């Protein structure tokens, strides 16, 4: 993945592990985590994802509440 | 061999376990086996081992489950109603293939029953008191000296096959005193316990001890593996004492202390011109079927004498397989069969 130095933080979703519970969506202070309507994962869900990555502040709330270790956070 | 000392059956169980390298004992008091716990309570600290008086027999056997998982030589003991409580963890340990030794100094039942001697837990020990298709090696000593030797053997068999071994004795065996001679050093089977939970040390994949297999095909496969192990144990570990059986008029089947009564009966009967043979199963499971088959053509009849309503007699019948009639004489409730009544029964059968 390309590394953009200007970005403050980045979250990556291991999409096929996502169970679509939306807990991450509910805790994101920037409201940037949402279910990716364009994708279906292996389980057939729309997995959680972040589109506007430049707004990510790397708070890791999404990762903290994720029950399935889907999310990795870099800062 | 060292010098002889006088010991109570229950003490010998504990001493033998210590000599066999058992350093962990978990139990709960119940007559007539509580001296086992007393002995461990005094001795374990000297060996740097663990003695815990558990909150229940249920917990005690689960502590055994944990200690065996951790790779230790471990033992619990109880008497009939307490053994019933241990059945849950016994079944789990059988499935998880954990080696451990369980002692049952049997008292009279059913229910709370009474503290006096009985042999009415034969079914429970040999036919599975817990759920599922499992077996335990069941050893039935008839003297204090044999008690010592079989407890040591039980630990070795347990480790060798990753199986449970149960020692069954009636209350008399636990309570009586006899001279016993200990070996200077025990022959201890050195088992590979790389399966045990000890911490991975970050050097290997994690070990798992479990008795759950959610895939029926896998569970059946595991069962087949267990059955194969039991077959191997039956092939290698069946033990029996055959006494006076060549040309006997009648062969008595008896185990434990009852077999000692029969030995006296044999002497008295001889004076009347009756030749009585004795087949004494030392392993109740695996049952020494072959010895009964071997002698099935000789005597007029077989007689099973037990301190129960007739439990081992079923295995005797299976082994004799209809070749000869099989009779039964038993006492219950803590009553002990007398030589006199056994002799009368023999005379009546041979009439």
């Amino acid at each position, binding site marked *: 993945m390309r590394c953009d130095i200007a970005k403050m933080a980045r979250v990556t979703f291991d999409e096929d592990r996502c169970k679509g519970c939306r807990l991450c969506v509910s805790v994101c202070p920037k409201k940037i985590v949402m279910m990716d309507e364009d994708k279906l994962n292996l389980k057939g869900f729309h997995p959680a994802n972040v589109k506007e990555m430049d707004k990510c502040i790397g708070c890791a709330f999404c990762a903290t509440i994720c029950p399935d270790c889907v999310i990795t956070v870099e800062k | 061999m060292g010098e002889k000392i*006088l*010991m109570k059956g229950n003490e010998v169980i504990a001493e033998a376990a210590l000599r066999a390298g058992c350093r962990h004992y978990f139990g709960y008091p119940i007559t007539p086996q509580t001296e086992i716990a007393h002995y461990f309570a005094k001795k374990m600290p000297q060996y740097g081992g663990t003695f815990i008086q558990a909150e229940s027999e249920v917990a005690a056997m689960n502590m055994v489950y944990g200690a065996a998982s951790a790779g230790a030589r471990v033992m619990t003991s109880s008497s009939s109603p307490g053994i019933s409580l241990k059945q849950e963890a016994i079944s789990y340990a059988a499935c998880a293939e954990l080696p451990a030794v369980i002692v049952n100094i049997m008292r009279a039942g059913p229910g709370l029953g*009474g503290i006096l001697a009985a042999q009415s837990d034969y079914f429970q020990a040999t036919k599975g008191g817990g759920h599922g298709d499992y077996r335990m090696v069941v050893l039935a000593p008839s003297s204090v000296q044999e008690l010592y030797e079989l407890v040591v053997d039980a630990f070795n068999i347990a480790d060798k096959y990753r199986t449970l071994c149960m020692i069954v004795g009636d209350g008399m065996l636990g309570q009586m*005193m006899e001279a016993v001679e200990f070996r200077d050093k025990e022959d201890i089977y050195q088992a590979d316990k790389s399966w045990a939970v000890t911490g991975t040390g970050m050097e290997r994949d994690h070990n798992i001890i479990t008795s759950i297999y959610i895939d029926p095909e896998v569970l059946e496969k595991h069962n087949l593996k267990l059955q194969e192990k039991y077959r191997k144990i039956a092939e290698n570990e069946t033990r029996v004492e055959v006494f006076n059986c060549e040309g006997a008029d009648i062969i008595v089947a008896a185990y434990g*202390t009852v077999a000692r009564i029969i030995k006296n009966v044999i002497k008295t009967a001889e004076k009347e011109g009756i030749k009585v043979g004795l087949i004494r199963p030392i392993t109740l499971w695996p049952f020494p079927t072959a010895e009964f088959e071997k002698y099935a053509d000789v005597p007029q009849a077989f007689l099973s004498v037990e301190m129960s309503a007739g439990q081992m007699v079923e295995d005797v019948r299976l082994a004799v397989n209809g070749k000869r009639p099989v009779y039964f004489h038993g006492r219950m409730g803590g009553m002990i069969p*007398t030589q006199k009544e056994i002799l009368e029964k023999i005379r009546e059968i041979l009439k």
Partner: protein
Amino acid sequence: MFNKRITIFTGHFGSGKTEVAVNYALQAAETGKKTAIVDLDIVNPFFRTADVRNRLEAGGIKVITPVYANTNVDVPSLPAEINSLFEDKSYSVILDVGGDDLGARAVSRYRDQIACDDYIHYFVVNTRRPMTRTPDEIIRMILEIQDGAGLKVDMLVNNANMLGESTPELLAEASEILAVVSSRLSIPVGFISGMEEVLSAYEGDRGIERLYMKKNITLPWEQM
């Protein structure tokens, strides 16, 4: 022997106290004394004084045993009748106390009545029992039992045996061990006990009294 109103037998469990106490009682009764024996064993559920009740009673001895002795329960309730023996001084009383400090505790509740009476406390030793094999072990056991009973041991009894496999040599071996205990605790050996055939073959300790015993407790497979 036989000259105190109350005779107490304690010891490590399995020391042979009961066999000694029963024989002692039978012989005391033979001297014409009005004798009572009390089974105070709350430790041992099998093989106890209660087993030989018939023989003792035939010898004119009053037998007091725990309420449930030799039944199918193991509640070690002490019989209230024991108190009567402290009142009625016409009896010679023999107390067969349970093993170890735990058993000795049962006698402790009577220690005030015993202490002001004419009594002797014998400690029975079988040196072929684990935990009483060496002078150190025996001394530890004596101290524990004294603690449990609340009564000091007055004399030792050499009862070295291995039941059917006993020999005079065992008594000789024990004699040496007890000599050490005696000198260290200043407690003399009161008497030597053994089955008649064994004890009569023992040549040593001629200066010490002897209790020639008969076997009173038989194992089930020996009984007809």
